[in-house]
């Protein structure tokens, strides 16, 4: 186990280096001169050079990269170009709780609704329940998240216009608080965000369960006289859910990208939103920090998923 972890950790380091390097290089070659933009009309050579030095932008690229890397490990993401004297970390710190809350609830619904739906569909395979279920899931699965978001927004607006309600169509309430107002803000984005993922899990679980239910050991379990409940929920499910662990990486990936769209469409002030704004203002440190954070987060998530998978399936021997 330890050997495995070490090996994976080294791989992780390699990937992190690659990701940070690419992110850094893109920022390095980015067009425009942020210092000049900063100074605007107050440009004078001395201030320019001084500022450049302060930001460390006059060093050769490899030194800059090493500084970049070193800072990353200390969670220092530098200072924002746009908002002077504000550290990138503080900008992110505002967005992270919001994005985390959004992603958290979305994930809970995805798994908590998707998996049971998948199980139901598998148990009632090819009946009308299954067909309807999978049909709906297909739609949610195929629709891009921003398409669904738009539909929902249109729908909310229509409701507001016809019932006089004032269901908000954008913005977020207070992070991690749940007054009725907060909920009215958060319900739609979370559901929209969760829909695609739930559909994905439903389809996956269905397929996995169907595969498992065909297995000989399920027949053995029945031959032993176990109740159908025991056969399904003890023997079949244990095996059927294992493959879900392998898709955690995927789920995380889509969670991250989806967040960008949800936050933009619904004007939710999370890190995705901040990043898009930073792109518009060429605030590279923020962009870099977000990208690195998210990429590393996903990679670590993958690693954890692999570990759990090997724990869950006794056939896997860690080498």
């Amino acid at each position: 186990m330890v050997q495995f972890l070490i090996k994976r950790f080294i791989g992780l380091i390699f990937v992190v280096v690659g990701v940070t390097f690419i992110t850094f290089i893109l920022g390095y070659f980015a067009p425009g001169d942020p210092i000049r933009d900063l100074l605007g009309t107050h440009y004078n050579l001395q201030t320019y050079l001084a500022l450049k030095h302060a930001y460390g932008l006059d060093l050769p690229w490899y030194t800059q990269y090493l500084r970049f890397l070193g800072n990353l490990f200390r969670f220092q993401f530098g200072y924002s170009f746009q908002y002077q004297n504000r550290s990138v970390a503080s900008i992110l710190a505002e967005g992270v709780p919001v994005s985390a809350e959004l992603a958290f609830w979305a994930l809970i619904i995805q798994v908590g609704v998707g998996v049971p739906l998948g199980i139901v569909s598998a148990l009632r395979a090819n009946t009308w329940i299954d067909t309807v279920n999978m049909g709906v899931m297909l739609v949610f699965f195929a629709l891009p998240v921003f398409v669904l978001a738009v539909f929902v927004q249109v729908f909310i607006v229509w409701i507001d216009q016809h019932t006089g309600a004032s269901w908000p169509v954008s913005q977020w309430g207070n992070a991690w608080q749940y007054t009725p107002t907060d909920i009215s803000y958060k319900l739609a984005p979370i559901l929209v965000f969760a829909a695609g993922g739930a559909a994905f899990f439903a389809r996956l679980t269905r397929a996995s369960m169907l595969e498992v239910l065909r297995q000989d050991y399920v027949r053995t379990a029945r031959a032993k006289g176990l109740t159908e409940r025991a056969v399904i929920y003890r023997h079949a499910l244990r095996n059927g859910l294992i493959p879900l662990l392998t898709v955690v990486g995927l789920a995380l990936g889509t969670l991250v990208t989806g967040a960008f769209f949800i936050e933009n469409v619904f004007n939710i002030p999370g890190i995705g939103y901040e990043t898009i704004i930073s792109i518009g203002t060429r605030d590279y440190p923020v962009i870099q920090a977000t990208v690195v954070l998210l990429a590393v987060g996903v990679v670590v998530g993958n690693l954890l998923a692999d570990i759990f998978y090997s724990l869950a399936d006794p056939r896997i021997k860690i080498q």
Partner: protein
Amino acid sequence: MAENLLEVNNLKTYFFTRSGVVKAVDDISFVMKPGETLGVVGESGCGKSVTALSVMRLVTTPPGKIVGGEIVLSGENILEKSKDELTDIRGSKMSMIFQDPMSSLNPVFNIGFQIAETVKRHRKGISNDQAWKRAVEMLDLVRISDAKRRAKNFPHEFSGGMRQRVMIAIALACNPQLLIADEPTTALDVTIQAQVLELINGLSKEFGTAVMLITHDLGVVAGTCKYVNVMYAGHIVESAPVKQIFESPAHPYTVGLLASIPRLDGNRGEKLTPISGQPPDLGKEIIGCPYAPRCPRVQARCREERPTLQSTGHGDQVVACFYPY
């Protein structure tokens, strides 16, 4: 005369597929006495496995369905039992082991658990400890060495032969009256085959368990069974005590089967004589004797009328043929 343990009367199990109705088992009847070992022999597709599954009512429905007949186990008609009653019967009054031990065990549970599970299910009020003890006992019985420790191992840590023994342990844990073994040795090495068969035989004698042994291999039958049913195309074509099957087979199919087995004491250079032709398509209506197209003794009558099981006059031997040997 002892009561019949198992009576199968006019069993019909059909499969309703998109391309038509496949009559996998078409009106068969036989009996088994307590403690008896019955061999069921035939080619792939002759209906022997489906017979076994029908007795256990484990036929996949849909597309399969038991459409007629009776299956009476110790006086109770299995076909009339409710689902709940069936789960009580399976594993405790009758059990089954299957052909492929590699896939028949659940990979995520250790084998001790898988045995103990059956015990807990069928013995009310038994504690986990006692169930586990019984599991270890069973492992000893099927000659898995170091049973106590190995009970905690997972199926993938055992070889094929050992996994089959575990299956036997599971099947016999609650002392059933009938054990159905569907080609238990087909997937195993020849040397292991003998061991497993010996085990089944020994345990059956020790506990008085009747065994329905399904196989395509006549050699397997020779050493273990008391009676043999020969099946072809969903029918039983011959049924006799094992000695008579080998010494005086009556049905041309049985004769053909025996002739196609290589023998150590046969003449050198003697050619093997396989049975020519193919078994019939069970999805089509069969008129007359199903074996007629391949039978060396076929006459006109065979293609028009279907023969039923009649006594040959030698003891318990019955055969379904108009022109038996």
